[in-house]
């Protein structure tokens, strides 16, 4: 069953641009990315859109559909009514290269600022021995497909460009939590999470969790546990005293 769907799509380069109206054929079973591709094929051959797997696993087609950060390939057209106008814009936190394609290099910069996995010096590769229960918390965070929608929706940088210099965003604070929970990681990550990567800016309003296409409980399982670990280190005198007495 086909119908003519009404779309408003952001067109422009480097921030300058406008929403353009299109009427495009929509077929049963299609997702928004399918319609964007049809638009590209039939009416706007220069429309720029980043995509790759069309299976919700590469994280390339992040965009904002009716104002919500979504993967174009995972947003079914059947979730909209036929008379609804669907507005498609690029992620609003990152600079626009062209149309729906944004420059997400902020995220790669933040990734590079986090020290990599640091095992004890006396344990060599191949000697790691871990039980499943010791690593399964971190495994949830490994599901991340780096679509960067969590960083895009986070108001700390979405509404405050100035915070980009000192806030890593939920994706990379989750990476810090993943490493800090690792049984073989010995790097000190608690102080740096707070001082260098801006964990204190997070006010746990859970938008990162709401938009995650992998349904990772970013706030409950990574950010809040990491905040509690920082409290152990910086704000809890009893833990500090216990560590002194028992020389932990």
């Amino acid at each position, binding site marked *: 069953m086909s119908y003519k769907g009404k779309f408003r799509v952001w067109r422009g380069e480097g921030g300058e641009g406008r929403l353009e109206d299109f009427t495009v054929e929509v077929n049963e079973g299609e997702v928004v990315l399918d319609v964007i591709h049809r638009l590209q094929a039939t009416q706007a051959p220069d429309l720029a859109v980043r995509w790759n797997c069309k299976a919700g696993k590469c994280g390339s087609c992040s965009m904002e559909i009716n104002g*919500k950060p979504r993967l174009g390939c995972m947003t079914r057209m059947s979730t909209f009514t036929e008379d*609804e106008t669907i507005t498609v814009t690029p992620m609003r936190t990152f600079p*626009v290269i062209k149309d729906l394609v944004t420059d997400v290099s902020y995220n790669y910069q933040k990734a590079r600022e986090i020290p990599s996995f640091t095992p004890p010096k006396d344990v060599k590769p191949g000697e790691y021995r871990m039980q499943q229960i010791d690593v399964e918390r971190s495994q949830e965070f490994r599901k991340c497909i780096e679509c960067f929608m969590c960083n895009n929706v986070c*108001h700390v940088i979405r509404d405050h460009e100035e915070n980009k210099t000192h806030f890593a965003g939920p994706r990379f604070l989750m990476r810090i939590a993943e490493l800090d929970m690792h049984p073989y990681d010995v790097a000190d990550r608690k102080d740096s999470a707070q001082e260098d990567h801006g964990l204190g800016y997070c006010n746990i309003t859970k938008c990162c969790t709401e938009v995650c296409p992998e349904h990772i409980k970013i706030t409950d399982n990574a950010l809040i*546990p990491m905040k*509690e670990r920082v409290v152990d280190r910086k*704000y809890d005198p009893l833990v500090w005293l216990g560590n002194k007495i028992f020389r932990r």
Partner: protein
Amino acid sequence: MTQQTAESPARKQRAQLKVRTLRTDRWWLAPALTFAGLTFFLIYGFWAIFDKSYFVEPYIAPFSSPCLTTACPEGARLFGWAPIGDWFTLPPGLIILGLPAGFRFTCYYYRKSYYRSFWLSPPACAVGEPHKKYTGETRLPLVIQNVHRYFFYGAILIGAILSYDAVLALIHKPAGLGTWILLVNAALIVLYTLSCHSCRHITAGRLNHFSKHPLRYRAWTFVSKLNAKHMQLAWASLFSVMIADFYVRMVAKGVITFPFA
């Protein structure tokens, strides 16, 4: 550190959409309901703290428990004690109010709810917030939110006292409706307290080797299951404590008089 304003060149490279949000759903409904629910609780709490009808044998209203001054009727005193003495003449609820109020105020779930509904930071996901600057919980006063675990310890105490009150009511009036209201309330308060993120961290969340601490790991697993329902428990216990408190006060005032009250 480079400081950039909202008009910075970097900001201008983003899509220049001049609207606060393009969301078409009712994104305002959740913060509006939260605002209404929390405001109602604050108004009720203010009234209840200053209301004097907080005890009727064998029930004590949760907002006024434990009663620690000689001004409290004897049956209302915790273990018959009155450690505060007679110098405190204000309503007894004021003495212990700080513990449950502080616990809820610094709770990770309530922080999310009032940051969204009262401070609009942000009001909903992908909806612009009205503030020009944002420093989050990095400095005073919000850095104080990090004391949450100390309020958790206090909340455990309050949960135990409310459970004790409910058990006393069960012993003295097992068929009373008030007894069962107090029991349900105590259970919800205890479950909400145990589902706290700080509790989850204290049980074993701070460990990196669960396998070396099997008992703590089991406790963490249990608390994690409760923690997944933290929001629901927060609201359920918020309303249960109001309902239980209001019921006891109505019985104490003689408004509710049926035989199994």
